[in-house]
C-alpha cells in the first residue's frame, strides 16, 4: 500500500521505533485486559453508543478484539497484512455509521492509558522517553489507517453521487433540448398561418382587389388561416394544462349517438372536399350509455376521425364500434398514408413529433394524438394505433367505459 509508506514517512516511523515497540511488548501485555476493560467502560457512555451496542455479549467479544488489537501493536511486524487489517477495523466502524470523531477521541483514551502504563513501569528515563515517542507513532499510524477507511468511503459515496448528478444533468439537458425544439417548432407553426392572416387583410386594406368577390375570397382565406391558428393555440393550451395537471374533466353518463352524429356532420364536409368516403359502421340500434366527459370524448372523436380524413388522399375512412368487456371500443380505419413502424411510438409522446412536414402539408398542431391519449386514459380507456407502415393506412382504436347501470341490466 503506497499510502502506508507515505504515512510512515510522514510520521517518521523508523527501524528504531520497531525495535522499541518489540521491547515494549512484554511490558504492555499484562496491562491489555485492563485497557480493554477501561475502554469499554468509557466508550458506551458516548452519546452515539446506544446506536451501535446492541447485545451485552457484544462487549465481551469486543474486549477480546481490542486486546488482540493491542497485542498486534507490539509484534514488530508492520507489513501489508497489518495495514489491511487496521484498515478493515476502520471500515467496520464506518459500516456501523460511527462518526469518525468518536474513533479519534477513543484513540486519545487508549493513548493516555498506555502512557500511564509506560511511565509507571519503566524506570530507565531515556528508554521511557523513547517508548512514549514510539507508542505515539504507532497509535498515529493506526488512527491514520482507520481514518483512511472513512475517507475512502466518503470518496466512494461522492463518486456515486457525482455519477447520479451527471446522469440527472444529462436527462435534464435532454428534456430541455426536447422542449426548445418544441418551442422552435411551435413558433414556426404559429407564424405560418399568421403570415396568411396578416398578408390577406393587408392586401384587402391596400385595395389590391379588383372586385368584391376577390375581396371576399381573400378574407375567407384569412379566416381559414385564423381558424387553423386557433386550433393550434387550443391544442397548445390543452397540452399546457395536461403538463400542469390542470385539465378538468366532468365525467358523467352520456349517450354516444348524438355526439357521433355531430362529429360525422363536421368531418363529412372535410372528407367530401377531398373525395374520401367517410363510412359509419357503428351499430345503428343499440349503443350503450358510457361514462366520461362528453365534451372531451367529442374532442377525441374529432381528432381521430379528423386525422384519418386528413391523412387519407383516396379511399375511405371507416368508423365502427364493438363491445369489449365493460368498454365500448371505437375503431377508425383509413386507407391513408400510414406511418412507419419505428415512428409509431413517438406519435403519442409530448413534444416529439415524427415529421413536421406532415403537419405542414396536412395542417394541425401535431398534438392531437398526445392530447387524445391523455383524454382517453383520464376517462379510463385505452388508445392504440396500428399501421403496417407507410402507404398501408392506419387504424386507431380507443375505448371508453360503459356506464355500470347499462352493464347490470
Amino acid at each position: 500500500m503506497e499510502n502506508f509508506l507515505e504515512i510512515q514517512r510522514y510520521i517518521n516511523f523508523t527501524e528504531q521505533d520497531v525495535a522499541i515497540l518489540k521491547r515494549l511488548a512484554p511490558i504492555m501485555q499484562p496491562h491489555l485486559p485492563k485497557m480493554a476493560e477501561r475502554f469499554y467502560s468509557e466508550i458506551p457512555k458516548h452519546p452515539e453508543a446506544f446506536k451501535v451496542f446492541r447485545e451485552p455479549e457484544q462487549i465481551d467479544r469486543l474486549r477480546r478484539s481490542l486486546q488482540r488489537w493491542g497485542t498486534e501493536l507490539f509484534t514488530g511486524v508492520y507489513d501489508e497484512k497489518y495495514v489491511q487489517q487496521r484498515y478493515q477495523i476502520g471500515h467496520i466502524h464506518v459500516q456501523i455509521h460511527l462518526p469518525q470523531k468518536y474513533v479519534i477521541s477513543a484513540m486519545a483514551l487508549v493513548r493516555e492509558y498506555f502512557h500511564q502504563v509506560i511511565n509507571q513501569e519503566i524506570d530507565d528515563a531515556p528508554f521511557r522517553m523513547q517508548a512514549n515517542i514510539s507508542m505515539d507513532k504507532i497509535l498515529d499510524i493506526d488512527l491514520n489507517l482507520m481514518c483512511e477507511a472513512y475517507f475512502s468511503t466518503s470518496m466512494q459515496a461522492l463518486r456515486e453521487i457525482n455519477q447520479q448528478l451527471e446522469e440527472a444533468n444529462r436527462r435534464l439537458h435532454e428534456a430541455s433540448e426536447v422542449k426548445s425544439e418544441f418551442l422552435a417548432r411551435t413558433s414556426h407553426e404559429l407564424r405560418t398561418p399568421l403570415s396568411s392572416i396578416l398578408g390577406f387583410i393587408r392586401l384587402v386594406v391596400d385595395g389590391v382587389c379588383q372586385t368584391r368577390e376577390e375581396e371576399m375570397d381573400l378574407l375567407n382565406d384569412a379566416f381559414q388561416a385564423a381558424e387553423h391558428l386557433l386550433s393550434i393555440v387550443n391544442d397548445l393550451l390543452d397540452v399546457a394544462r395536461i403538463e400542469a395537471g390542470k385539465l378538468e374533466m366532468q365525467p358523467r353518463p352520456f349517450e354516444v349517438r348524438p355526439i357521433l352524429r355531430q362529429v360525422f356532420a363536421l368531418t363529412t364536409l372535410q372528407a367530401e372536399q377531398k373525395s374520401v368516403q367517410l363510412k359509419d359502421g357503428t351499430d345503428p340500434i343499440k349503443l350503450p350509455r358510457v361514462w366520461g366527459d362528453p365534451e372531451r370524448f367529442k374532442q377525441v372523436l374529432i381528432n381521430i376521425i379528423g386525422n384519418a380524413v386528413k391523412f387519407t388522399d383516396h379511399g375511405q375512412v371507416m368508423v365502427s364500434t364493438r363491445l369489449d368487456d365493460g368498454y365500448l371500443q371505437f375503431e377508425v380505419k383509413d386507407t391513408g398514408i400510414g406511418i412507419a413502424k419505428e415512428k409509431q411510438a413517438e406519435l403519442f409522446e409530448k413534444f416529439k413529433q415524427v415529421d413536421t412536414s406532415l403537419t405542414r402539408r396536412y395542417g394541425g398542431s401535431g398534438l392531437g394524438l398526445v392530447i387524445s391519449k391523455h383524454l382517453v386514459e383520464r376517462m379510463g380507456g385505452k388508445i392504440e394505433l396500428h399501421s403496417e407502415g407507410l402507404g398501408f393506412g392506419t387504424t386507431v382504436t380507443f375505448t371508453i367505459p360503459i356506464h355500470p347501470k347499462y352493464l347490470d341490466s
Partner: protein
Amino acid sequence: MTKKQTILVVEDNVLIVKFYHMALGRQGGYEVYATEEVEEILTLARSGAIDLVILDISLSGAQYRGKQIDGVQIAELLRKDEDTAHIPILIATAHAMEGDREKIISATSADDYLEKPIYDSKKLIEKIEALLSTNKGRAIQSG
C-alpha cells in the same frame, strides 16, 4: 418598357403562395411562378428565365432524386451550378429562433432573409427591388 422580371416562389403553403401572387404579381408587377418541384426549379433557373428566387426553408413536397429535401439544399444546388449561382435568393421562412438567421444565411449563402409573418407587401417589393438592382450591377461588372 423592358420585359417583366420573373420571381420564382418556392413555398409549400398554398395560402402563402396565393399571397405572393397578389402582392408581387398584382401589386409589384412581377411575373410570379410558384413550384416545389426541384427539377423544375433547376431547369427554370438554368434557362435564364428567373430573376430572383423566394425560398422557404421547411418544405413538404420538394423531392430530389427520390429524397425529400429542404430550402437549404435547394439553395446549395442553385449556388453549385455556375449558370444559376448568380440568381439572388431571398429566404422567407417561419424559422425565427435565436441563431436561425445566421445559421441559414451561412448555409445557403442567401442574399437576404425575411422572417414570417411576411405581410407588408411594399417592404417586400422594396427588398426585392434592391436585390434585383445590385444583381444587375454584379452582372454588368462580370460581363
